[in-house]
């Protein structure tokens, strides 16, 4: 029986992109359904009644929500291709710990383009602190997963297409502060699964301009 996979997503969401990268890594065919979060579809509300958010993966009719939970699910079901989590429990724990940590970038990043003045400065400091710690964790490895692209790489890489937008509104340079991380993101973009899943940073920048207008931020 062929698997039926549907992804409810928003094109600009870096959380949704995590799932797209994971699906591509596993070579899985799926139906992408763009969601309008200002006018939520009955399917979204039915499949994620608790949070009413994207991404939602629907596998043979059953929904899975929360991006990192979805990525782990994909890794566990399609375990014989491109494993994302390592097999050693301690290394798995480290990957999970840091993947969880990357979630901080989501809220901090929002403040970079939503907030102003002191609030924005605080968010900028926090954001760069996070990136620096993550860069430390990468060290001299080609990927966070070591020789191979893994779970933590999936968790973080989608933020890289948002860097340009963050830098513009936050007025800073990721490359100046974390050159190794930028080099890592370029290395990841050489992978088909990543380049086909991430969005153009200019388009993301345009998206943020539109969101700021909508939310009444000057």
């Amino acid at each position, binding site marked *: 029986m062929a698997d039926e996979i549907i992804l409810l997503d928003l094109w600009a969401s870096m959380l949704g992109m995590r799932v797209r990268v994971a699906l591509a890594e596993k070579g899985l065919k799926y139906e992408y359904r763009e969601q309008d979060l200002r006018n939520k579809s009955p399917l979204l509300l039915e499949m994620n009644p608790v949070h009413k958010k994207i991404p939602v993966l629907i596998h043979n009719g059953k929904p*899975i929500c929360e991006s990192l939970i979805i990525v782990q699910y994909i890794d*566990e079901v399609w375990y014989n291709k491109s494993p994302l989590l390592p097999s050693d*429990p301690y290394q798995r724990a480290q990957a*999970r710990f840091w993947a969880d940590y990357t979630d901080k970038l989501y809220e901090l990043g929002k403040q970079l383009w939503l907030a102003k003045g002191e609030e924005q400065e605080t968010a900028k400091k926090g954001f760069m602190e996070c990136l620096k710690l993550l860069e430390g964790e990468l060290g001299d490895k080609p990927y966070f997963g070591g020789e191979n692209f893994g779970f933590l790489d999936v968790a973080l890489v989608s933020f890289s297409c948002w860097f340009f937008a963050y830098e513009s509104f936050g007025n800073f340079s990721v490359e100046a502060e974390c050159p190794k991380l930028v080099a890592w993101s370029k290395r990841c973009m050489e992978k088909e699964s990543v380049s086909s899943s991430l969005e153009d940073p200019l388009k993301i920048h345009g998206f943020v301009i539109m969101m700021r207008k909508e939310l009444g931020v000057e």
Partner: protein
Amino acid sequence: MGEEVKLFRSWSSPFALRIVWALEIKGIEYEAVFEDLSNKSPLLLQYNPVHKKVPILVHNGRPIAESFVILEYIDETWKQVPLLPEDPYERAMARFWAKFCDDKVLTSIWSAFIKQGKEQEEALVAAAENLKFLEKEMKGKKFFGGERIGYVDIVLGWLANLVSIFEEIVGLKIVDERKFPLLYSWMQDFAEAPIIRDNCPPRDKMIVKFKALLDAAIASSSSSSK
């Protein structure tokens, strides 16, 4: 076998208590290292430099932090009495509910306890909405894990002993038996399970601690000009 398992905890941290319960349920021998969180040891800061918090599990000298991460590590390393289900979909559901418990249930109930006035009212409404989802999830089950205590029960376990303490201190009903009968009876079953009952911080000490936290919160909110 030279297994060395240490758990850095505090006497009251509900997050560290999750790890105590998991280790006890699996019958794993460990050494508890009690931290004074107002005066963190160099070892704690060395083992968890990112968050500087408890719990930290140190297994044969290697540290793991963050309670969810530690629970999964324990489950993968010591396979007896599994905490997470085997089926990937059921595992994803368990992870989902655990995250919901911390992100939504814990934060709304904590706000309902620590805030005053309108903020408290709003928190109580949010808490009730969140509890409704849990109540629905409990249908037909004794524990979230099914017949026996599992991952989600351990993550939510603080509800079983802390909520009645909060309710006693603020004089408000947070988990109403009539509105949440399944959740209420889960709270009783969980608290009465021998391993849980034998591994809970003393109630009177908890009341003193949380009353002091509430007093401090009230004092700081009335002294700030709003």
